[in-house]
Structure formats: C-alpha cells, structure tokens
C-alpha cells in the first residue's frame, strides 16, 4: 500500500498517467453534461410552483457542492502535505484553488439569479449565503497567499495552514439551513433518507453533479501536469521532455 502511495506521489509517475486518465475523465464528463442538460432542461417537468425558473438548480446545486468539495480537497491536500511532505499534494492544492473559487462564484451568482424570481430579492444576509460568501473570500485569500511567496514549497505549506483553519466554515455552510431559520431551502438530498425530490428531476441533477466533478478532475489533471513541469524543471526527465 505504501509503495503505491509513494509511487502515486512521485511527480513523474503522475505526469505519465495523468494524460491518459484525463482523456477518459473528459469523455465521462461530456456524456454526463449532455445527459444532465437534456434531462434537466427538456425532459424534467416544470415545477408546479416555480415554473421553468427552477431549472437553474441544475447549475446552482452542483456548483455549490463543488465549491465545498474542492475546499475539502484543498484542506486535505494541505494536511497531507504538512504531515507527509508529498509534493504532488502541494501541486493539486495550488491548481484546485482557482477552480474552487470559480465554482463558489458561480454558485453565488446563479443563486442570486434564482433568488430574484423566487424570493423577490437578489441577496439576503442569511447564514448560508453569508458563509458561502466567506468561503469565496477564503479561496481568494488562499490564492493571494500562494502568489505572495516566491518559493512554491513554502507557499504550499503556508496555504495548507490557512485552508485547515478555514475548514470550520464547511460544516457551518452545510448545516446552516438546519441550524438557523433561513430563507434558503432546506436540505433535500441526504444519503440515508428517501429524497423529497421527484425522480425525473433527481436523475438529471445527479448527472450534472457527476459532470461537474469530472470536469474538475479533468481540468485539475491537466493543470497539475503543467505545474509539475514547472516544479521539477531541474530534474533530468523534465529536461528531456522539454528537449533541452
């Protein structure tokens, strides 16, 4: 097991397998996108209360879940980097941050667009929206911190500490709709309960979630590849690839 982890942690190995892997992931992503969008925009019936404007759920919810998921990846990679000093986790964290920030911004903006027809207002200062906004600031702060250092190794470890401190925000966002009475809709999909949403609306949603996840993985793989070249620019295998 340890051998596999160390092998995976080696930048060269990651570089070799990531191109192949990213091709498969992209195919899955495109298939799920097409399926999810068709199912969500065409097949699913209009909501009896909101009409067609509810369809933005197919972008808003996956984006919001991705914003939380990527932050957890950020914090986990950071923890692994601090404890076991594995270089690849530094790179994964560094490339994931802008993607996570974009998803957070997407979640906030699609939420605002949805809010106007549904609640009559673009924004309200309730617990979930405010903590999601704090998450955006945390991402931006993380990116700013990383770019303030010249030495990338120190940048990665400093960012890891920031990410670990901000991790407290994730449960707050997740449980905010249960803990405080809020304008935002309560949780509808939990792992253990029968979901309170109809199956024809649920399946495109799940497809979109998978599509967003594979989108993130594909982009992260590609960006990690190019970062590896930058990190390892002194080693012989990189010099061979670049033809120097």
């Amino acid at each position, binding site marked *: 097991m340890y051998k596999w982890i160390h092998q995976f942690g080696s930048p060269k190995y990651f570089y070799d397998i990531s191109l192949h892997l990213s091709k498969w992931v992209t195919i899955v992503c495109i298939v799920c996108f097409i399926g999810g969008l068709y199912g969500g925009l065409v097949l699913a019936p209009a909501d009896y209360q909101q009409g067609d404007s509810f369809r933005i759920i197919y972008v808003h919810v996956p984006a919001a879940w991705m914003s939380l998921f990527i932050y957890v990846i950020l914090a986990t990679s950071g923890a692994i980097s601090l404890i076991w000093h594995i270089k690849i986790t530094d790179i994964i964290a560094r490339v994931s941050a802008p993607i996570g920030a974009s998803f957070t911004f997407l979640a906030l903006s699609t939420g605002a667009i949805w809010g106007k027809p549904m609640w009559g207002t673009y924004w309200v200062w309730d617990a979930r929206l405010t903590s999601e906004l704090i998450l955006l600031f945390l991402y931006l702060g993380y990116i700013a911190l990383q770019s303030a250092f010249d*030495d990338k190794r120190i940048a990665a470890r400093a960012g890891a500490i920031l990410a670990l401190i901000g991790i407290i925000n994730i449960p707050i966002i997740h449980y905010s709709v249960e803990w405080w009475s809020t304008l935002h809709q309560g949780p509808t999909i939990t792992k253990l309960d029968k979901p309170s949403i109809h199956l024809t609306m649920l399946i495109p949603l799940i497809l979109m979630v998978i599509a967003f996840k594979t989108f993130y993985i594909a982009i992260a793989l590609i960006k990690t590849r190019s970062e590896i070249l930058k990190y390892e*620019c002194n080693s012989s295998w990189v010099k061979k690839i670049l033809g120097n």
Partner: protein
Amino acid sequence: MSKFSINNLECIRQNNILFKGLNLSMEDGGLLQINGANGSGKSSLLQICAGLIQITTGEVLWNNININQRRYEFQNNILYIGHTNAIKATLTVEENMTIIHSLTGSKSKINYSTILKKIGMSGMNKIFPYNMSAGQKRRLGLTRLFMTKSKLWFLDEPFNALDKEGKKIIENLIINHCAKGGITIFTTHQKMEIDGYPLQSIHLRNNNV
C-alpha cells in the same frame, strides 16, 4: 561522546541547486569552518544544520538520530547565532542579557558585569542598543556564547563587524569551547587560520562543493 553528522544533503533555494551529496561528521572537540563566496549557500547550510530549514533530500543526525525526530532533545544542545544579533533595541543591555539567560534554561544567577568585562563592554549595563555601534551590538549578541550550556554551536559569520580585539576574544572562546569537548561550526567569507587548534574546512563554490 556526541556526534553530529550530515548524510547526502542537497539544498535547493529559489530553484538553484546550491550543493548536492554533502556529507559531514563531527565529534567532540570538532571545529569546522564553512567558507565560500556570497550566495554560495553558507548560511543556508548552517540553517539546515540547526534545523531551521527543512530539507527533502538527505538527513541531519544528532547522535545518529534524525533531528526532526527528537527535535527538543536536539535543540536543548545547540546554540545558533545568525547574521542578525537578535537583541532588542529598546531594552537595556542588562535586560537583553536577562532574556537570553532565561532562554538558555540555566538556573544560576547571572553576573552581568563579569560577562560584559569578558566581551569587552564593561560598564555598559544600562545602555540601550540604539546608542551603540554595530560592533558593540554584535558583541552584545555574542554574549550568548558566555551564557549557554550548549554543546553544539552554529555561528553565522561571528567575526562580522568585530575589531581585532573582538575577533581575538571570540576566537579564544571558540577554542576553549572545543577544547572542553564542544563542537563548533561557523561560516566565514574567507578561509581562516586559527592558532593552536586543528580546523576543518568546507569550501562551497557556486554549484559545487
């Protein structure tokens, strides 16, 4: 009998490899100078030895145990003096010395005047460092050498800013320390000779050792 050793050390700063494959072993009474031009990695090497900089390739061992594994056991035995003097400009000489003394963990009472006399700063007990010259500030920083019980000394350019008298004092101090079984590693710009004591050397050239 203590042993300080380095195995296969590699140092990369700002994407430049300063040195690779460095090996070193020092035992009781060892005195080592690290010299090289500016930017050759002298201070970095010293900081790696003291444990300030974490390295990915190679290891630093104290009594054959990696210093990261028993960090405070190692730090109990070292004294590091860097380029800067680590003194507070708004505290008097005596107050600075009190803090230095507390950090060494020594329970004995400190005799300011004796130490100041030895370092050549008699009577300056109540003076503030912002009124002192660079050489005097350096001497104040070097009073650590008189107050420590540590076996292993890491000194980064200790003779900087000192006049001939000061250099002699510090040289004698280092020789006494090593003669009593201590280990000293220091960096200098140019290769030095020390009378009356065997001195090992490492010369760091850019991109090589």
